[in-house]
């Protein structure tokens, strides 16, 4: 089939959709489909969005492709006889961030009308879809709550899960994620203080722009708690090969960001490497994937309890290994694989 993938980008800002779009394109082509990826630059600055929403209605792709798969908002406003939406998040300022200090849109009659217009447009564009998918249950619930729409959850898999493997159970827990405050690497450091075993911690990832103070805080905390010998902090870009290796040799993976929509690619990378995931009850989407005691631990976001779970893994390597295997099963069980994605998107 000929397939259009349409998405939006904020120029020169790394966005979550890049990975999903690239991996979808790659896997469609691997199955002999012809793919054209359209990345539209979009400004989210108030009050520029309405102009662009209108632009999306005027661009005509209706004569091309057997499917149009729309990913990042407002790509779903494009018209197509067979539009499939794989919705990853709303323009949050108008939705779940409205009424909070992150609202971004002024609280004036103009701002309210602007927000209403965005929601109205989304309601039109989304309802034109032949099929509506979300990348997580959180997003599915928001689509229901704000747009009155039922979406099917379709989890985005890793693009190359086969690159990951296990080289036994090591002596360190790995926290691999962008270094930014809401990912809560600091909680991992705090939790290590409460361990009785000599389990180690490796924190690796690229700091977000402006997060240097946070990295400094992490270093200071590690110093202060006397954990310098047990904690390795890699605050820079890590090459793929090194990343795969870090996952392969770890004991288990820590991933407990604050209230994220999705379980995170780190969780998938963990299970692809047959490692358990240690997460918390307030992490958001991870709890869809991690079942406490089965493929990892889900504890309250309390350093003592997290520390205890860390010790458990260290003390029972067999448990860690079994949980890692269960992780691979769990991923398959809830359908996080490309065959399912293909079947659903191209149905």
């Amino acid at each position, binding site marked *: 089939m000929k397939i259009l993938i349409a998405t939006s980008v904020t120029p020169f800002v790394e966005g979550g959709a890049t990975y999903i779009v690239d991996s979808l394109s790659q896997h469609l082509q691997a199955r002999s489909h012809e793919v054209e990826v359209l990345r539209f630059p979009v400004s989210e600055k108030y009050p520029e969005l*309405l102009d662009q929403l209108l632009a999306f209605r005027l661009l005509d792709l209706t004569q091309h492709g057997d499917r149009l798969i729309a990913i990042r908002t407002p790509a779903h406003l494009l018209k197509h006889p067979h539009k499939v939406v794989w919705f990853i998040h709303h323009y949050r300022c108008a939705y779940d961030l409205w009424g909070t200090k992150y609202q971004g849109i002024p609280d004036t009659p*103009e701002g309210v009308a602007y927000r209403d217009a965005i929601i109205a447009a989304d309601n039109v564009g989304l309802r034109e879809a032949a099929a509506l998918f979300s990348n997580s249950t959180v997003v599915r619930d928001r689509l229901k709550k704000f747009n009155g729409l039922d979406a099917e959850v379709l989890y985005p898999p890793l693009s190359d899960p086969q690159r990951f493997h296990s080289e036994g159970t090591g002596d360190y827990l790995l926290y691999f994620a962008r270094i930014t405050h809401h990912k809560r690497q600091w909680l991992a450091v705090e939790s290590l203080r409460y361990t009785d075993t000599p389990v180690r911690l490796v924190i690796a990832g690229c700091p977000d722009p402006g997060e240097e103070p946070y990295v400094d805080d992490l270093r200071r905390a590690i110093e202060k708690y006397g954990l310098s010998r047990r904690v390795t902090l890699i605050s820079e870009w890590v090459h793929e090969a090194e990343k795969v290796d870090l996952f392969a040799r770890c004991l288990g993976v820590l991933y407990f960001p604050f209230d994220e929509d999705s379980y995170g690619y780190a969780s998938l990378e963990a299970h692809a490497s047959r490692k358990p995931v240690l997460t918390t009850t307030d992490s958001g989407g991870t709890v869809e994937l991690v079942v406490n005691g089965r493929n990892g631990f889900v504890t309250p976001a309390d350093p003592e309890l997290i520390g205890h779970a860390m010790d458990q893994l260290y003390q029972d390597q067999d448990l860690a290994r079994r949980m890692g295997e269960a992780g691979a099963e769990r991923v398959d069980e809830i359908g996080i694989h490309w065959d399912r994605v293909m079947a659903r998107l191209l149905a």
Partner: protein
Amino acid sequence: MRIAWFTPLSRKSAIARASVAIAAELAQLADVHICHFEPGEVREAAVPVKRFASAAALDDRTLENYDLAVYNFGNYLPFHREIFLLSRHWPGICILHDIIMHHFFAAYYLEDLHSPAAYSLLMERLYGEPGASAAARSLSGQPVWESSEVGSFPLFEEVVQGALGVVTHSEFFRRRVAQNFTGPTRRIPLAYDADRSSPVVPRSHLGVEEDRVLLITVGHVNPNKRIEAVIEALGSLGSAAGRLVYAVLGPASPEYQRKLEEAVRRNRLEGVVRFLGHVPDDVLRAWLSHADICINLRFPATEGASASAIEEMLFGKPVIVTDTGFYSELPADCVVKIDPAREDDLAGVLSRLVADPAARKALGDAAWRFAESEYRASRYAKELLDFAWEVRAARPLLTLADRVANECYRMGIAADMPIVDTIAREMGGIFGRR
């Protein structure tokens, strides 16, 4: 909400009077500044007053301090010129106190700018060939604005172009504006406060005996007020007219005055009709206080709402009006309406009312009750603020439409090209309105 309220503030402006009252009430609900362009002594207000030399002297940074500008319009150029110029540059809400804005533009183009061509162009642009012809007539000694034709060429359309919203004081005028203006419109009953509490001189001081029935007509004396018809009607009452006094309070041009006096002589009403010319406010209040019947005819209706009729109702008087425009919307039990095509009815109405004090009282009381609640400044302020919210909420899509229109203009896209419909359809389609 921060509102810049542009208005004349002169003591001679009735609109200024209304603005002061409204602004005082509006200040309870929003931050209001009265902004005006007149030098010299002006009315006092209970809100901050900002004076500017001219529209050009106001810079955008100052205007950006406000969420909305409100522009008060009347037909008199000296009071409203700078307001008009500013409204072109900085869109806001336009309040149209007068329907007919022809005199304003005639004075602007012909006396201010000395450009008959611009006046003609305006008339043609808004009214096509008939407008062009009327302009030609105006320029060759038969001014449209002094004839009854003026109702067909009101020129308010030029004022509202580009406005964010328009306020009128009668429903019929709002509907008319809506035919020419695609943005939000609202009818709000004109705010008016009548001073009924200050003491007035007794009737005898006015030279009117206690046993005479006093009829008055207030306002600038011109054919529009149908005074000739009143004189004829009084004449047809024969000797019964002897029990009446008809006082005409307002300035008249010498020729028109002569014409009316001629009608008075013809109808042998020398002892009945009195022309008092312009009188000071306190004298006017005295006449209003003592009047038994107010005659407030108009044809055609040129004002958005009649301040004089409202004042007369607030004084609890029976008012005879023409059944047109603003007056048609007044409740039937509060005023007596004359069908403009049947002015002869006036004689019958007058003789009936003159003979029936109880009927007069009933009308007057009903008029007072109605006017007292309808024309409150507090109500005006509340409805205006509500409208301001509506207007501001309409802005994002209006601004988008403007930007699109601008691009179309730059590309030379004609109004009849399919893209114009496409844009309207798509915007309506995704945003839920035009």
